């Protein structure tokens, strides 16, 4: 898990089927030494992993991502200890499938958009 090493998040706030939380990144995490040495940038795949871990924290179940139709990385995220970014995650349960529609935001600027299907395990 990247939770508590790479990033931390505040208590999950749920309204209807949407969950919101604020994320803080740990600039000292070793990933940032390799991505990239001259300039730390949050790897796109770590944004996806954060969606998965926040989803799992909310539904209290481990999952596997089986499909993702559309992921868009709209802006670089430079890790900053003094800054919070926001995640909004809409969850729809459909039989065995957990459909997640998520975005990462810096206040009103959308940084990352995710649509994917998970299954419990």
């Amino acid at each position, binding site marked *: 898990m990247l939770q508590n090493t790479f990033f931390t998040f505040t208590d999950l706030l749920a309204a209807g089927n949407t969950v919101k939380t604020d994320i803080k990144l740990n600039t000292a995490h*070793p990933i940032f030494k*390799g991505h*990239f040495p001259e300039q730390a940038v949050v790897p796109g795949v770590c944004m*996806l*992993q954060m969606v998965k871990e926040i989803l799992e924290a909310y539904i209290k179940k481990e999952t596997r*991502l089986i499909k993702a*139709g*559309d992921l868009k990385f709209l802006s670089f995220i430079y890790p900053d200890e003094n800054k919070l970014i926001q995640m909004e995650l809409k969850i729809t349960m459909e039989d065995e499938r957990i459909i997640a529609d998520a975005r990462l935001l810096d206040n009103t600027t959308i940084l990352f958009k995710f649509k*994917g299907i998970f299954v419990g395990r």
Partner: protein
Amino acid sequence: MIISEENILSLIPQRPPFVMVDQLVSCDEISSNTTLLIKEENVLVFNGEFSEAGLIENIAQTAAAGLGYMTQRSGQPILTGYIAAIKNLEVFALPEAGDVITTNVSIETQIFEVILITGSIRCKGEVIAKCEMKIFIKK
């Protein structure tokens, strides 16, 4: 094998612990093939399994290694690429620590600094993941 694990860093901008390819097996203008031994200490291995995030990064770095090889051969410096979008991702299984994965990337189109690729990963003979990816090259 054309580029070994010792020399893979000459082709890609990523550095440990965020290197998700070991060897470049073959490469031409259109396609590249890499291998990766999944190690327990890999930063994208969780509970002994290489995560979905790891699989996607492995496809992106297979593209980077192929592009790096071709640019190095033409005497140009290695450029940094970023994933701009991913489409039609399917993950059928997650490899475990100790497994070796082999990855194929094909360049579909390249328009200036935007490259569209398709990638697929095999483990023990089976396709375990595939996706399309749009990569933005920062010049």
